[in-house]
């Protein structure tokens, strides 16, 4: 307890803070907004897990008038956890815009909603590209994929195991037990390339009010409905949005799970592993890349020129590292590509690598002059996107760089010189002939 006081103190003093910085991307100070302090106890396993991973959690009531995200224009926290689904108006200086600015300045966010999520929470989610079911009384119901339970009669407690297939997001270890989910579903805008469906509903699931009869088809049905989604913003800020707060709760962590129709009964649900791995990703303990030492030069030279000539041969190299949570490890992949780009890529090559994070290639400058760019635009599922571009002009031949003494032109040369010779002879002859 007293430890937490110190944490809080640390959090409030911006000078002492270890800020979220590009060289150590993973977060340190996390603000947790609750709408009931009991959540701190009821979800303590999740929080303790975070603490054990070295995060400084700062618990506040969401309507606490003293809370603020930044002071003197500097953010006090690296990440924000919104476990206050019902909050209508944050206390202090925080509002939806403030939270979105927080994200837009590169910080991370975890939002958990539930059955009676407030419009504020819904709006924040929407701003991040996640559309919760507009029917505020709807819950996700699945009559085929529910979790068998003696007490939960209406099938709103769902055992879902349709995870996204990405080691970088969910960790390399497979999640065996299904994840318990009880809450509201959301849909993603298909054209939105930033948001990913991490846990999607089963084909038979739908989102409706279990207490009232259905007249019109529900807006969200089947696999197109998403239960848990992550967003990676263009500035690589990461957002986790879950339709269920209780997904993080001790009860779900602890409880056993049996998916309807499946004989196997796991005596522990997959929630803990799922949530933990997910939080690792969200807090940049995984999948954060950086590129350094972008170099290019003519073949056989060392320092990079101010301008290339057409048809030069050049070499390009870059080093890419991944943040492992503690240190920068070399990133190993075989699909990093570089473009030599002027309005459209003239050359697009896959870089070869030495598996120690060093990527390199060599190619010939096109015989088109202009201002080109070396572009590396590396986007992979779950990884932060790398986008390097380096401008370099390409000039045509100088007047004296063209080929000379071409055999094909010998006759012309010959003619020209014979003319000169003839001229010389002629002068003499013409002058002195009598």
């Amino acid at each position, binding site marked *: 307890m007293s430890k*937490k006081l110190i944490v809080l103190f640390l959090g409030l003093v911006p000078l002492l803070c270890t800020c979220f910085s590009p060289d150590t991307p993973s977060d340190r100070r996390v603000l947790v907004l609750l709408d009931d*302090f009991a959540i701190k106890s009821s979800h303590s396993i999740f929080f*303790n897990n975070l603490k054990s991973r070295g995060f400084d959690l700062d618990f506040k009531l969401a309507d606490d008038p003293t809370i603020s995200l930044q002071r003197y224009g500097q953010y006090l926290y690296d990440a924000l956890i919104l476990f206050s689904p019902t909050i209508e108006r944050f206390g202090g200086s925080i509002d939806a815009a403030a939270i979105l600015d927080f994200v837009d300045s590169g910080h991370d966010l975890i939002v958990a909603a539930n059955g009676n999520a407030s419009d504020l929470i819904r709006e924040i989610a929407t701003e991040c590209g996640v559309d919760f079911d507009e029917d505020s009384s709807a819950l996700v119901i*699945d009559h085929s994929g529910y979790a068998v339970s003696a007490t939960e009669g209406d099938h709103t407690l769902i055992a879902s195991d349709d995870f996204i297939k990405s080691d970088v997001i969910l960790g390399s270890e497979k999640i065996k037990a299904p994840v318990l989910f009880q809450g509201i579903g959301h849909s993603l805008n298909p054209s939105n390339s930033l948001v990913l469906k991490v846990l999607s509903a089963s084909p038979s699931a739908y989102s409706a009010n279990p207490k009232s009869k259905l007249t019109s088809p529900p807006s969200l049905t089947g696999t197109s409905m998403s239960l848990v989604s992550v967003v990676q913003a263009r500035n690589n800020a990461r957002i986790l949005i879950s339709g269920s707060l209780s997904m993080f709760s001790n009860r779900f962590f602890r409880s056993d799970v049996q998916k309807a129709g499946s004989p196997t009964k796991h005596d522990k649900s997959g929630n803990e592993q799922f949530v933990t791995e997910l939080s690792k990703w969200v807090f940049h303990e995984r999948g954060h890349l950086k590129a350094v030492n972008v170099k290019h030069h003519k073949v056989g030279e060392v320092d990079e020129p101010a301008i290339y000539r057409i048809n030069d041969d050049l070499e390009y190299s870059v080093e890419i590292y991944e943040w492992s949570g503690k240190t920068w490890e070399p990133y190993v992949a075989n699909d990093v590509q570089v473009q030599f780009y002027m309005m459209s890529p003239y050359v697009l090559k896959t870089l070869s690598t030495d598996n120690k994070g060093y990527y390199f290639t060599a190619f010939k400058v096109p015989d088109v002059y202009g201002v080109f760019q070396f572009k590396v635009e590396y986007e992979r599922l779950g990884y932060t996107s790398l986008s390097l571009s380096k401008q370099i002009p390409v000039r045509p031949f100088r007047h004296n760089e063209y080929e000379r003494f071409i*055999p094909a032109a010998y006759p012309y040369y010959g003619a020209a*010189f014979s003319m000169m010779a003839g001229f010389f002879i002629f002068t003499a*002859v013409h002058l002195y002939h009598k």
Partner: protein
Amino acid sequence: MLLLPRMSSNLARLLLLLLFAFSICDAVALPGPISDRHRSAALELFAPQHGSFASLEESYEALRIFEILAVREKPDVRATTCPKVLENLVSSTPLKDLFYALKVNGILKCKVNGDIFKDIASRLKATVKDAKTLVDLYYSIGSLLLIKDQASDVDVLLADADGTFHSIKALSQSDGKWRYTDKPESSTYAAGLALEALAGVITLASSEIDQSRVNLVKNDILKLFDSIEKYDDGTFYFDEKLVGGHEHQGSISTTSSVVRGVFAFAAVTSGKINLPGDKILGLAKFFLGIGIPGDAKDLFNQIESLALLESNRISIPLILSLPASVYSLSNKDKLKVRVNTVLGSAAPPLTVKLVRAFSTVAKDSAVIQNKDLKYDQNSGHHVLDVLPDEVDVGIYVFVFEMVLHDADGEKVYATGGQIHVPIYVTGIVKVSNAEIAVLDNDLGSIETQKTLDLAGNDIVSLSANHLQKFRFSFQLTTPRGHAFKPHQAFLKLKHETKYEHIFVVGNAGKKFEIVLDFLGLVEKFYYLSGRYDIELTVGDAVMENSFLRPLGHLELDLPEAPTSKAPRLPPLAVDPYTRYGPKAEITHLFRTPEKRPPTQLSLIFLSLTLLPLIGFLVGLLRLGVNLRNFPSSAAPATYAILFHLGIAAVLVLYVLFWLKLDLFTTLKTTALLGVFLLFVGHRILSHLATTSAKLKSA
């Protein structure tokens, strides 16, 4: 009161909310009593690191929990803990540690000789006398209490009990809360401590405490219970607004501290504190509802409070719980009810009475009226052996009541009156005579009709155009033969381009039918012709055989989209795995160099171009060219030679220029040579001119 704004908003919302409110307030899943899972959790939460716990406080909590839960395979920490206890007792440690040392000692019974207790006691009395803060009083008085029942020979009685009592009471607030110090902000947690301390004072009082004061405290307790908070599932708890300066107490620790205080106080005071039983029961429910806490502190508070509730003097909550609230008609389940105390020990003799049971859809028509459950000795369950035929699949609310056998039990036990329990009666719903048909539009003449057995998995394939209709129908009947309206009855048409269209299948009685008139739907279908897969989903909470199955596919040909308002298709979800990934490589095509002629040819022509020069020379000879005009005298001759040398020089310079020189050097040199040429040329030419003039004149 609350309704008015809702009225002002729309009616649909009102109904919906009412429904919601109802469902919440009258149907809650009941938490069961403490079970073995708590024991295992306790063991894992209170795992001693190499033989001992981190602090005395924790070790006390651990031992206490093990004691309450009667955990058998508890870790033996006596050997490691007792020395700690002793050292804390002998050395003058802060009150808190002393307090917990004594508590631990109380459980472990380490060997401590009497006079240690003596001087601790004297020290404590001193502190009690001039303690100002509530916490100090609490610890010191608590310690004295502990000494009292650990070493009976030590005199721990407070001389000035009244004064102490007063000094504690002085910290109380009008709303029943207490203050830690004389600072204004009050706290519920503190109230718990204060009450416990007061209880201690009363026990330790050498002389009887003035009854009026005790009653004042009792009023404080009642006031305190007015500020109790309530969750929507009928559980009660105390919560704590953050108090400056003191670490914040969560609802669990606050509640448990209050519980501790109140019951301690109740235990030592004569006469009953008349607290409403349902609040006690609500507190019990609260602690049970926590389930298994995540960390040790919460577990301790939960268990200890429950233990106190288990045996308190005010009213002992009895917990009515159902092992299962979902009953399947198909495998003739029996309705079982258990009644326990919070810690799961058996309840006093009583009968559980099912006051009535009604379906959530028809609230006022009860399906069962006053029925007693039979008590089954060996299982300890109260059983309703057979459900009457009126009970069909569906969601019901059963209302139970406990009737204690001995009359005055009411005063001792809190039963909580009528208990509403939601019961899901599930069963297998019969799906029969499903048929699927394509009709001609205007005169509903059937073109193709197929019947299919939905239980099996047979598939139909149809074809239709936009002038036709599609009809699909089936029947649902409950085990009891009534019509059944599932919550989910969707018909899904999925185009090969993954565009889905979902329709709710409506029903008339048992018969479910949907008719799709494609003429009206072309717009909705984005004018997409082609193969549509048909899928049927039928599901309900009480339907055990909820299913989602393909019915086959429909070849649909729709008219072309009118170019005027071609519906732009909504974007389809992109598969995230294909969205990324490497692009195809691009390599630049270089301009092909001009074709070169063979070198020999060039050489041949080189020689050819030189031929005319030869011809020229030959021709000159043929013409009999002579240089007789060459000046004979010396000076002009030299000029002549120089002149031609100059020209030659310029020409050679040109050749050099072509070979390597650059333009400007060439120009400069040419200029120089030019001057020279000008001079020489002028001389020689004028000479020639004069000679020729002479010739003419001559």
